[in-house]
């Protein structure tokens, strides 16, 4: 039995301890905002917050999550996620959309740590998030825009 919380809700699961958190979220809890792109920590589509830090859920076995707090895009709250999503929508960042939950999660984590990131900060924080549609120009712009809103 593995016990943890997801988006503030207690979860107890009797499941193969090797099962990646990604598939638990998707198949068992039906939280489908978290996406699958590679399964080997190469694309960032599966990014969630684990105890407040961004984490690739595809390579996080459920056994490692025991006692932790998991937050998915469905459960994110706070000024950073609001600023990020507002900025994303204002300039229509998404194309196919598959990577975007992960992009939004990583961008939010970045702004939580560095409120006014430079281009270099963005390159470092977002390096693990692939966008096959290459919406990178707008991702960069939206992060800067969100940072400005947060400065108020």
């Amino acid at each position, binding site marked *: 039995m593995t016990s943890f919380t997801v988006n503030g809700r207690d979860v107890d699961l009797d499941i*193969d301890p*090797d*099962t*990646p958190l990604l*598939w638990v979220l*998707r*198949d*068992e809890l*039906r939280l*489908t*905002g*978290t*996406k*699958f*792109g*590679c*399964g*080997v920590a*190469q*694309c960032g*589509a599966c990014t969630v917050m684990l105890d407040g830090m961004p984490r690739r859920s595809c390579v996080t076995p459920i056994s490692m999550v025991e006692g932790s707090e998991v937050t*998915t*895009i*469905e459960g994110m709250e706070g000024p950073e996620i609001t600023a990020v*999503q507002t900025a*994303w*929508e204002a300039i*229509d*960042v*998404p*194309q*196919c*959309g*598959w*990577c*975007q*939950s992960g992009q*939004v999660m990583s961008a939010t984590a970045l702004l939580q740590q560095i409120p006014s990131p430079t281009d270099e900060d*963005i*390159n470092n924080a*977002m*390096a693990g*998030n*692939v*966008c*096959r*549609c*290459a*919406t*990178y*120009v*707008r*991702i*960069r712009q939206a992060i800067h825009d969100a940072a400005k809103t947060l400065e108020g």
Partner: protein
Amino acid sequence: MTAMQTTRRGFLAGGAGLMLAMTLPLGKARAQAAAAAAEPFAPNAFIRIAPDDTVTVMIKHLEMGQGPYTGLSTLVAEELDADWAQMRAEGAPANAAEYYNSAFGTALLIQGTGGSTAIANSYMQMRKAGAAARAMLVAAAAEEWGVPAEEITVKAGVVAHEASGKSSGFGALSQAAAGQPVPEDPPVKDAKDFVLIGTDVPKLDTVAKTTGKAVFTLDVFRDGMLTVVVAHPPKFGATVASFDDKAALEVSGVEMVRQIPSGIAVYATNTYAAMKGRDALTVEWDDVNAETRGTAELFEEYSKAVAAGGVTVEENDDIAVLEDAAQILEAEYQFPYLAHAPLEPLDAVIEVKEGKADMWYGCQFPTVDRGTVAQVLGLPLEDVTINVILAGGSFGRRAQGSAHLAAEAAEIAKASGRDGAFKLVWTREDDLKGGYYRPMTVHKLRAGLDVDGNIIGWENVVANQSIMTGTPMEAMLQGGPDATSFEGSSGLPYNLGAKRIGWAKMESPVSVLWWRSVGHTHTGYAVETFLDEVLVAAGKDPVQGRLDLLPADAVRERGVIEKVAEISGWTGSTRDGKGYGIAYVKSFGTYVAEVVEIENRDGVPHITKVWCAVDCGIPVNPNVIRAQMEGGVGFALGTALHDRITLAPGGEVEQSNFHDYPMLRISEMPEVEVAIIQSDADPTGVGEPGVPPLAPAMANAWRALTGTKQYQLPFSGAIS
């Protein structure tokens, strides 16, 4: 929805409001007879107006990021005079009669997305559909209010009669409108009266895609559904000789294992169990008909084939003039197989219940897939429903003439031996190793200059596999050569003197497919880098040299080349340690020229900026056009820098995931500046045309900066 009633002239009225069902072949209105069994989501409709005023447009082209939900809805909203906030979009289900793509010809009606045709083939059709609905709303209001229709105005979703002070939203009129006759050929607006076309209306799918709420195939769950992964042969053309599923069946969650034509299917109660079960399989493969040549060996054969000249597919004067040239240049180019790698790997959900099959997935050729599924399951076509939903990218991968994914899903359902729901999931490894690649290609080019540096002859021989041969699309070739193999080598606008284009058709069990911009992915590179090299050898500037080769009537070609030179401040020389290169490619009716600025970072090319000029006729949504150019640049750049699919000697694919088939990262993405040419020509597509000019412009900039010519892609390494 309450009971439907059939009304005159084919309109369907019911609790859900007005459904306008019409197809407009050859621009002529033709109302569809209402099917007795029609339901609110019946397929024979483009527009649905609900009592709550929302207008839903049934989008016949797959939304995979290129923007048809927004673009096609804009066309309807424009003529309907709707308010943008009331517009919604939904994927149209498979129905060839209603939703065929006129750009694919009419000999065989195919509902499908490809060739950047969504806007081009829908432009008048969607506008006429919107105009007809508007006319019916107006007629209904005139009848209800007892006023002349000519005095009624429609603006931003409000139908109004000024003199009487009456006004209404669409929803309240939809029932009455449904009873009005269908206008045969409703007039559409003059371009000068456009309110929405040409503006940056917000995309309809942005919010759902920013909040994680958008529903893609992998997000579909049905009661009792099993997830299925398939062990495919490691070599193309191999088949199952024998298999042992004992260990797989012991994996907790694995329910069954079945042999299907494409491999061994493992069915489980969750995705991880299915993958683990597949890992536990032991399969012996029969390689008798498999491709066992490696990439190096294949390139040797391709090289011999281009040397032999191929069959002539385009020719004007005798290419023998090259013998009189003062100077001859020659080059041979090698292009690898490429995977599309949409970020959502292939997947499909199928449910078979009591002799009917339903599917949900990001389907790009709905009617082709529907026929295949019906055939595999032995069902009449009407009993197969394909619900087309959002796709997490495609770039051509989901447009399968072979319908192999739908067929695999149907085989899985069939092999289960029972009714049930199944989600077929391909992993990234399945995707990269699974074939349907951009064909590997070799180009041989020769050009001759006279003593004054004028080009007097040009020969280009291309060797690759045919994409269309062996699929239902082959009928479109009408026995001729497959132009998707050499498009862009043929049909050049430049005056190059005597010209011969040859094609050598290669054969292999490796499956190939169109990959974002198809033939132009390699012809654009070979032609535009070689031309650059020739112009420089003749002492000419790459921009002026190209302009000089264009005939007087090549106005749009000239337009984008001049525009990109202008916005990039083209000087023709390197400055501040940066090199500049230009390329121009017309593809799918759209004209694009790009200039690349490049730096040499310890021998590695780094692109800092790209300027792009695009002429796609009337720009329906400039924001979407810019987004597609930006995305096309990034997609092409990542590929040119890093990507190749290679076969080891013996025939196995050497790449498996993004560590060895790398995607462009944000740190590699240049700034992109886009100029859209103002035009009143009919609109053409933008999904693909941003791709072809990038790699050649980059190679030209790199050569200008370093002197190094790049005859192989990717840049990151020679292909052994």
